[in-house]
């Protein structure tokens, strides 16, 4: 059998197969993706209902998941004080900065913030309501008593069961849903 002829045929085909690739146009350069759903910053502003100074707690992670670790700052709250606290969510990785808490408010029946206090003498009470009259937690009334230290875990649940026992009072145990955000602040009352 004429092996030469066959080898030639194979070679021809090989060059045809590999040659095809050259014809393809240079692929387009992809565009960078600006994440439009990322949350980088959680800021809680405590406004003293008396005459005390404004206090701020902030969790900030501008480069998103991974990369540089986040920075967490929490001002000391005064003893026996009453604050009106408002929570702000930002996406600072895009320009202009996107205020993500608006989106949470737009879907207020699908979201709820929970404030779990551990060790510190701080009490959070919901001061807002969604379209069905259930709390959302973007604004809260905060009261403090004796000096103490501990932590406050702030959790945002997506699609919680807002009618479950204790959920309207801020108990996360029966809330269900999936977590969109979970940040723990060191809390000092002094």
């Amino acid at each position: 059998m004429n092996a030469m002829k066959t080898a030639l045929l194979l070679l021809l085909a090989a060059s045809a197969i590999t040659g095809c690739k050259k014809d393809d146009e240079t692929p387009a350069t992809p565009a960078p993706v600006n994440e439009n759903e990322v949350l980088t910053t959680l800021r809680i502003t405590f406004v003293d209902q008396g005459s005390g100074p404004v206090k701020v707690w902030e969790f900030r992670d501008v480069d998103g998941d991974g990369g540089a670790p986040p920075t967490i700052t929490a001002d000391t709250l005064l003893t026996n004080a009453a604050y009106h606290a408002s929570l702000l969510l930002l996406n600072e990785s895009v320009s202009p900065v996107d205020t993500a808490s608006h989106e949470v408010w737009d879907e207020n029946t699908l979201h709820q913030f929970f404030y779990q206090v551990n060790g510190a003498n701080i009490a959070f009470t919901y001061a807002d309501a969604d379209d069905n009259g259930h709390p959302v937690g973007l604004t809260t009334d905060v009261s403090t008593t004796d000096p103490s230290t501990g932590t406050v875990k702030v959790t945002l649940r997506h699609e919680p069961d807002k009618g479950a026992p204790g959920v309207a009072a801020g108990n996360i145990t029966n809330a269900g849903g999936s977590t969109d955000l979970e940040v723990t602040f060191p809390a000092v009352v002094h």
Partner: protein
Amino acid sequence: MGHRWAFFLAFLLPCRALLAQGGCTLVLQGRVLDEHDRTPLAFADVVVPELHRSVQADDQGRFSLPGLCPGTYTLKVAHLDCTPVERTVQLDKDRTIELFLEHHAAELQEIEVARKRPDEHVGQAHAEIDREAMEAGAGRSLTEMLARVPGVTSLSSGPTIAKPMIHGLYGNRILTLNQGIRQEDQQWGNEHAPSLDPFSSDRITVVKGAASVQYGADAIGGVVITEPVELPRGPGLSGEVRGVGILNGRGGGTNAMLQGGVKGLTGFGWRVQGSGRYLGDSFAPHYILSNTGLREAGASASAGWHGRRMSAQVYYSWFGRKMGILKASHIGNLTDLRNAIASGRPWYVAPFTDSIGPPSQTVRHDLVRAEAAYRVSDLDQLVFTYGYQANSRQEYDLRRGGRSGTPALDLFLRTHTGDLVLKHFIGTKLHGRVGVSGSHQENYNVPGTGVRPLIPDYTEESGGVFVLEHLPVGKRLELEAGARYEATDLRVRRFDDANIYRTPEHRFSNHALTAGASWTVRDSLQLRTSIASAYRPPNVSELYSEGLHHGTATIELGDPTLGSERSLKGTFDLEGQWLHGRLYGALTVYGDRIDHYIYLRPDGYALTIRGAFPVFRYVATDAWLHGADLTLEYRLNGTWSLRDRSSIVRGRDRVRDEWLFLMPADRTENALVYRRPTLGAWRQLEVTLASTYILEQTRIPIGLDFAPPPGAYHLVGLGVSLVRPLKHGELRIGLQGNNLFNTAYRDYLDRFRYYADARGADLDLRVAYRFGKKD
């Protein structure tokens, strides 16, 4: 759908036999059979040189030469894998004769008779899912059909997503050939089920060994082949219509196929096929698995012509799927995952619905295949195959601010493949294939997702050469040896975490060798053994993944320095009958050494605004896998028999001296089978009472999983099937009940076992009508 039925019916009417005319009216007909075991040799060529006439045998080896005058004729008979023979026939009246050929492949592997590629699995353990077995799996996914084979298990993500796992390996370590073309459908993802319609083929073969020489990269664990369809070569219409109703999920499926030839155009055949599945939410014993609906549709068309020296075939298939992903599997962070595991119930359960919401996936896969073959000489054939595939995938997640309708992942993958193979003989015995293959692949992230891509854009090109030769030694032994060399170029286009554009390039070159032997000890006992190396260049996901994997709440990081995986797998396969044919047994034992085995390993935690996430990095280690698959069937008497199918797999990390993650637990399926050839007007009654027992996986690495493996479970199933011959076809009916006692269980290989139980009791009823030429 209505139009399609009308279309099929329109084809049923003008079906008439072709009658021979002319002065000479004698008919010579016959069968071409294997000399050793009288199995028919499909599509053998029968030539009458005196008359310059030739005819091709059908798939049962039958041929007919009408319109002959009385006289003496020479018949030359050739078959792809046989030495041609000549025979002289005296014709004075109509005659029916039998022609015998010495068929090398058939004597080794009766399973491969009538194959276009009869010599590909010498020495390799393999199993086949034929039309009947596929029919029993109607309405189920490809993976569910494959999982009936011992040694094949299913890696699933809830009730809708399942990927085949062969001997403990899955994903990029299993190669899928769709109509003989390497399926490229983002198979790196654990929640990416194969995008193909099993009913676009008549037969699925599972090769349970390393097969890189034959098929190229990725065939480390095994190969799943949906065989190219054999088109009819003569006139006559045949077809099949099938329907299945599925209780669990309250849905069903349908499939229809029609094929035929063209009168007066010998060798020309065509086939069209379409199928669909529709399922709503599945039920677990205690709750509904919300958002696990599925819609699937596939259609294919092919046409081919088979001449004396030339043949050509074109094939096109389209496949589309939309499926829901268990909503309770959407979790926000590690706390949610721990809560889900602790509560033992899905966090989201809603009333039954067949609508699909986020999270969900849509996939579309298009395949074009063109093949041309040219018979260079009586024995040597040159085959060129070209394949084009386009895979489009969108994954939708639960997103804030009305973005749930925007895919979070939108990928488009386009692949061209080309192969040129020379099937040849060197002398009269040594035969095999030598060839070149190449592929070109582009992956695009379709813009507009608003999410950083999980895998980057890339271009991958590869080219390879291979040779695979077979040597029959005597009548009972066949040897095989082969080699392949392949080089792959990968050019990646991505933005790094600082949003700087990078275009890293990688080149991987690999080789594979194989050697095998098949020995037919006696007619009812066969031994096969092979040792084969295989390779797999790292997938782009293993090199460049960067980000959060929602299904498991882990941050996954790729490693661009990873190299190719290399595997050396030895298999020993024994198949035979003992006790005067009452006992059938098949045993496969294997060992697989994989160097540079790539897997995800935990590497601390990352604190994000959504809470803490475990970080997993792709790392490489050296692995050793071994195990055994066993099938036994014992015939108690003419009607009753007992069947056992069992398999075990062990996987060790040789570097860390620990077990490998996600290895199948030991399993055994035992069945009592009742068969009766006739029951009144019905035929082939088969009743199967099956017990499937899956043990708890106790061989696990420490610290790689979020929850301990679920316990052992036991499922009972009952199947009944029977056939009713009709005037122009046959009616086939089957009833299959699975998990009859509605047992609540979770499987170790179900990645959604953290969130919910598996499906509960299920009942399928299927009806099929076949008509036309039997095969």
